[in-house]
């Protein structure tokens, strides 16, 4: 099946591979790590030792179904942490660049999901320093429900 939920899960796996070699800052000194990749939303807050940042969130945002086909919009939200204001936004931008490059090099992931143009990204001017956020907006072709002949 080519459902939006399966797309999100496949995209998570794809992005995990893309960012696995990153070593990004956290809010803990001397703790650098690849971003955690989560679907939907970050897990609920707790007082545990695992920092939320850096992260990539793969979030299903909206869908459109027309006669010619169905598409869904998936937001890919990247989050980096750095007290260095010359480094933080670069880390966020580099994650976006890398995911963008790998997605459009292949166009199709898991042999069934096709990413469409245009892709947009934004790095908001207002940033929650020392956290740095960027948002990619991607559009994907998904299964299009077709009318069945039914005997009444």
């Amino acid at each position: 099946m080519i459902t939006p939920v399966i797309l999100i899960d496949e995209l998570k796996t794809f992005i995990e591979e893309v960012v696995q070699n990153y070593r990004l800052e956290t809010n803990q000194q001397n703790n650098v790590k690849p971003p955690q990749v989560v679907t939907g939303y970050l897990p609920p807050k707790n007082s545990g030792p695992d920092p939320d940042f850096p992260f990539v969130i793969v979030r299903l945002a909206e869908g459109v179904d027309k006669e010619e086909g169905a598409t869904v919009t998936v937001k890919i939200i990247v989050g980096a942490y750095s007290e260095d204001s010359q480094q933080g936004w670069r880390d966020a931008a580099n994650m976006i660049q890398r995911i963008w490059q790998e997605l459009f090099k292949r166009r199709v992931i898991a042999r069934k999901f096709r990413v469409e143009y245009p892709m947009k990204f934004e790095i908001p001017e207002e940033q929650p320093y020392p956290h740095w956020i960027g948002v990619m907006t991607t559009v994907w072709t998904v299964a299009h429900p077709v009318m069945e002949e039914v005997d009444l």
Partner: protein
Amino acid sequence: MFMVTFKDFITRDLVTFFNLNEFAELHNIDGREVPAIVDSDILKIRSDNRYERFDGVYKGEVTVYVRASDFVNRPVFGQHLRLDGKLYLVVECNEVSGVLEIVLGANES
């Protein structure tokens, strides 16, 4: 005739206010140990405006009272200030009768 004014009393009271055996405690502010009174830390969501909300980030706010004479320069809006090792941004700074009231905000995760 010599008159003691209310302002004189306030200035004199600062000694008590910032006495380490009374109200104040030593806090590390930007690497210096300074007698200060730190008001409780309030954690809240970043903003009610959804465009200013960010995944995984919440806002912490704390108010610090210090003697103005303990600072060479009065902190300004947006300045980075490290209180007891934690990085904050100056949200507000008022000076009243020799006391700096510094409101500090931090985006936490």
